[in-house]
């Protein structure tokens, strides 16, 4: 099936896949990109609980001011929530076009508050009290049950989330040097593998390398015509978008630098700069995907939120509940979704963090169900024993 046809189906019958039990192995109709903010970003300063006096009491130095005419105040999204002002020109317009959703009180049941344990748990997506297969990530299991899936990890190494039995290529897009091998050398090396069990991997590897090289060539050409030179995550995001537009429909990328124990800043400062970079990236991604943005869903997660109260160093420590983002041309956006509670001292988990009311596997299972029309056994392969939660995301 061609992309154009898929696009048509996807946009005309956005709900049709929820009853799609006809196919035993569902096709991959839309494009899904999972973005992992490693380090536990401070979600309470992204999505500001502006109605909570407790928020302002808890963060005397780093709170984002209530919406006002001040350019550095939070941007109102609903009666309860407002957005970090640094996202005014990037994420806010998407939200207004109903292409962005935020899910507060999201996360895992893991209570270790350890980066690596919680990241591992999320990436494995298996019950903690069950015997786990430590070499099987949930995106790999998703790739394994889908038909026509073209997965790609836009990372230096294959992350746990994509490890497992399905073959998943990886390529980082940040610092791309000229390919080490020229076309002739690639051909000669491929020839050595033609009768081996690795021939598919080798051919795939060289063709990914070609695609990346071509993308970079196009980028250089655009740059020489005075296009703005992107950097940081924005550069990654543009490249990811072009690769996903051309070929891949199940992607993963991670971004570090969110572990803000000291001096995280408020409306401006360290975290604001990181969020700005992120926002620019997603706006650029939407732009680069063009008409394909309509059948793309981007989900942004992080291992945990941070302590609700600021610490003694104008920063925040490892917490629990966080805020997930869901972006895309066809998401049912413009809302803050999921189970919520009033933000006050009583509703904090262990008197320090946001609680988790929207468990990540249930949320993602609900999304996958709708996006791919999985049956219950497929869903059970991806997230064993999980009851999907329908948040009406797409």
């Amino acid at each position, binding site marked *: 099936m061609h992309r154009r046809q898929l696009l048509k189906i996807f946009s005309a019958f956005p709900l049709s896949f929820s009853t799609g039990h006809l196919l035993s192995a569902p096709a991959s109709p839309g494009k899904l990109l999972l973005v992992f903010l490693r380090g536990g970003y401070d979600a309470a300063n992204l999505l500001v609980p502006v109605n909570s006096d407790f928020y302002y009491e808890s963060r005397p130095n780093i709170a984002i001011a209530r919406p006002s005419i001040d350019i550095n105040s939070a941007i109102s999204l609903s009666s309860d929530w407002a957005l970090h002002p640094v996202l005014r020109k990037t994420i806010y317009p998407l939200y207004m076009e109903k292409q962005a959703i935020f899910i507060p009180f999201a996360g895992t049941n893991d209570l270790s508050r350890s980066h*690596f344990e919680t990241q591992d748990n999320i990436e494995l997506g298996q019950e903690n009290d069950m015997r786990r297969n430590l*070499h099987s990530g949930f995106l790999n299991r998703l790739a394994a049950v889908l038909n026509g899936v073209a997965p790609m990890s836009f990372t230096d190494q294959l992350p746990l989330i994509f490890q497992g039995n399905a073959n998943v*290529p990886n390529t980082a897009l940040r610092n791309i040097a000229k390919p080490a091998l020229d076309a002739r050398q690639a051909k*000669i*090396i491929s020839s*050595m593998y033609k009768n081996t069990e690795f021939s598919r*991997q080798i051919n795939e590897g060289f063709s990914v390398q070609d695609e990346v090289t071509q993308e970079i060539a196009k980028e250089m050409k655009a740059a020489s015509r005075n296009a703005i030179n992107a950097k940081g995550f924005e550069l990654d995001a543009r490249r990811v978008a072009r690769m996903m537009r051309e070929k891949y429909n199940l992607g993963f990328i991670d971004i570090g630098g969110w572990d803000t124990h000291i001096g995280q800043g408020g409306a401006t400062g360290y975290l604001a700069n990181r969020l700005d970079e992120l926002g620019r990236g997603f706006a650029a991604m939407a732009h680069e995907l063009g008409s394909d943005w309509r059948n793309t869903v981007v989900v942004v997660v992080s291992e945990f939120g941070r302590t609700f109260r600021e610490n*003694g*160093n104008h920063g925040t420590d490892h917490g629990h509940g966080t805020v997930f983002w869901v972006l895309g041309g066809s998401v049912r956006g413009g809302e803050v979704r999921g189970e919520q509670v009033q933000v006050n001292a009583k509703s904090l988990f262990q008197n320090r963090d946001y609680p988790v009311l929207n468990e990540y596997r249930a949320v993602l299972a609900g999304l996958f169900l709708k996006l791919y029309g999985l049956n219950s056994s497929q869903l059970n392969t991806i997230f064993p024993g999980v009851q999907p939660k329908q948040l009406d995301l797409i």
Partner: protein
Amino acid sequence: MTEIKASCICAKFFLIFSLFSSASYASPEWKNQHDFDLEKADLYSVLNRITWGVNSSTYKEAKSIGVNQYVDQQLHPGRDELPIEIQSQIDAMTISQRPVDQLLIELEQRRKKVDSILKSTVSDNEKKTAQLAYQNELNRLEREAASRSLLRDVYSRNQLLEHMTWFWMNHFNIFPGKNNLHAMVGDYEDKAIRPHSLGKFRDLLAAAVFHPAMLRYLDNDQNAANHINENYAREILELHTLGVDAGYTQRDVQEFARILTGVGVNFERGTPTVKRELQNQYVRRGVFEFNPNRHDYGNKVFFGKVILGQGLAEVNEVLDILSRHPATAHFISQKLAAYFIGDNPPAALVKRMTNTFIQTDGQIDATLATLFKAPEFRQSLGHVFKDPIHYVVSSIRLAYDRKPILNTTPMVKWLYRMGESLYGRQTPDGYALSSIFWFSSGQMMTRFEIGKAIGSGSAFLFNPEGQQAQEHSAFPQLANALYYEVLQNSLSQTTQQALEKATSSQEWNTFLLSSPEFMHR
């Protein structure tokens, strides 16, 4: 029900064990260690499997003394002799010069100082700087350990010892990023794991179990009477000794956790106040501590056997049970066989290794001897896909032999990119040994890139850390006597034809290091 089953297994095992111990090592299977029958196999392939990868000097050495003698020497290593430049690189490291206990206590003081800076009123920038400096020092110590390990892998004459050190480090995996173990991982490798890599499993197990790095990594420093933390107890049973399906019960895990209470660490110079009647029970070795105040002195029942509450001795009693349990013998033999001959080793071979393990009371060298003399071992030669660490180390060994590299950073970076960094596996199960995890397309492309970097001498292995990149060193000569004498014979027609298409020596090297045959051991 399960309790009964466990005690049955136990009784049967004690019977088996007493039979064998009275038989005083009478099996011919492992006794004639010189008789490996390996002269039937191709020497190049044997060396490629037992060592970190063949090179000219290893080949010459093995050829001159004969393969059986060589393998026997590898199983019973003598004093090592590293190239003098490599030895001096290692000698210059902080981890070689400072006793680890002193270093750890000092770093703990430093951590407290950083903590007090964080609590003070200095600027956020000063706070960040102080924390970063401390973190950098820890990372530097971990990097030293990784560097020492890689240099030994490349240059040690005791290749099998280093090969097995990696295996056991992976088996008893710790992750330095958890609970701040960066400064300890080198000591863990050097003092706990490496000395016992070819010795007795019981000694190895005890060394790992009592090492502060392991105790912290698996949270046993948090395990105290009435505040039970089962993590370590469970992983010892599941990952380190019996294996997951060995028939132990949740009760066994809980009882073992009680037995392990009070086994922990102490980074202070002082010692805690211990109840008078328990003072003679207190144990302190460096930062290792057994604190009787934290121990549960009640009796326990483990695997159907009553363990009397008597402090640290209980742990030794349990380690005896575990290291002599047939399930452990099987689990370890299976894993050793998979490491050396690939996924799904034949059951009959694993059984023979298991027997040797039991008969020798867990001698690792004897168990490996049974493996090396097996026809299944000879048949498997050349067919095991290298994981990234084997690819990287074997490439450097082949390329540079005894010529000392001056910087291991490129190796460290390559391993990171391929997802198999030293000390980089976060979960206690260690890296997967199965080949399917290591031949993704991105992985293979990275290998070709490495092959080219080494093959064309552009890998910066000869630029000392921190110095400006110099001009490329001379590329290695892989088309050498070793190649024409033996390596060439291992290559398929297709590979040889590809090599003929090379237009320069550098390119020829690149093709050789990228060939399917070189991806296998």
